[in-house]
């Protein structure tokens, strides 16, 4: 079971994402933005950071990186793909997920431990959680406010495609407290908070985030 972790120029969380993949029991494979080669991975993670310096819009330039062409192609064929934070922004810019991530409503860069509830346990990235389970993982971003039009929001709600919501106050102005969504097929997941920073109580607020990485292993073994 090989899970690719992409490094763009400006990516920050690739090391933690790779460590989380290993902690979940899979092999982490480094993927480079400039290589048109997915190295036979079974799934891919786009980690957080500031790819291409967030120039133009977050994720706007990363979307056109050579590795992304292959990732988009494979994701459209069903390959599991998880975008965390900046990775979520890249997925929206790639149109693999609907909507867009805009500047936090209060303009502040937020960095805090955030409680979220898991609302869809059918995806390959969330199958090890229980429906409605509340977990505590870090949230750190300046542009995490999920926005989309009313029709898209109704579709996401109606089809159960909101995979996680913020619990308590809305941290960034996201519509309907959205912290993460999935595509119609359920293989592509975008998540604003960071499960890869919460796989070990020694270095994170909990080990709750590990569930995303054990889920993918289970999904692939099945």
């Amino acid at each position, binding site marked *: 079971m090989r899970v690719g972790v992409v490094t763009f120029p400006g990516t920050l969380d690739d090391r933690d994402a790779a460590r989380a993949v290993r902690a979940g029991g899979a092999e982490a494979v480094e993927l480079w933005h400039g290589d048109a080669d997915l190295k036979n991975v079974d799934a891919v993670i786009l980690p957080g950071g500031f790819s291409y310096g967030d120039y133009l819009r977050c994720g706007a330039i990363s979307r056109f990186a050579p590795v992304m062409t292959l990732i988009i192609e494979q994701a459209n064929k069903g390959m599991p793909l998880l975008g965390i934070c900046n990775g979520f922004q890249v997925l929206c810019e790639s149109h693999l997920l609907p909507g867009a991530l805009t500047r936090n409503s209060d*303009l502040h860069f937020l960095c805090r431990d955030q409680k979220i509830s898991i609302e869809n346990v059918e995806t390959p990235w969330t199958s090890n959680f229980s429906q409605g389970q509340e977990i505590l993982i870090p949230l750190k971003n300046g542009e995490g406010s999920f926005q989309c039009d009313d029709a898209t929001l109704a579709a996401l709600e109606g089809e159960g495609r909101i995979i996680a919501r913020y619990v308590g106050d809305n941290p960034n102005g996201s519509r309907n407290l959205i912290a993460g969504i999935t595509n119609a097929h359920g293989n592509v997941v975008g998540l604003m908070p960071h499960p890869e920073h919460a796989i070990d109580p020694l270095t994170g607020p909990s080990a709750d985030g590990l569930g995303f990485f054990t889920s993918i292993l289970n999904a692939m073994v099945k």
Partner: protein
Amino acid sequence: MAKIVVDVMLKAEILDPQGNAVAAALPRLGFTFAQSVRQGKRFEIEVAGEPTPAQLADVEKAAEVLLSNPVIENYVVRVEK
């Protein structure tokens, strides 16, 4: 040499926290004229000679796929003399 300008603005229904922050700062400096402020991006693209219709069509395409995100933004392309 001519200049093609692309103005990109957030759609009216999208919250603009930066524009709101500017609107809140103006009265603190004694400027009381603003009912609201929206902040956008302006791209200035230089081309050799007068822009051809084909170039302008390409700029429109680039504005659609790269310079703007049509989910949250609108754009206007014009030639500046």
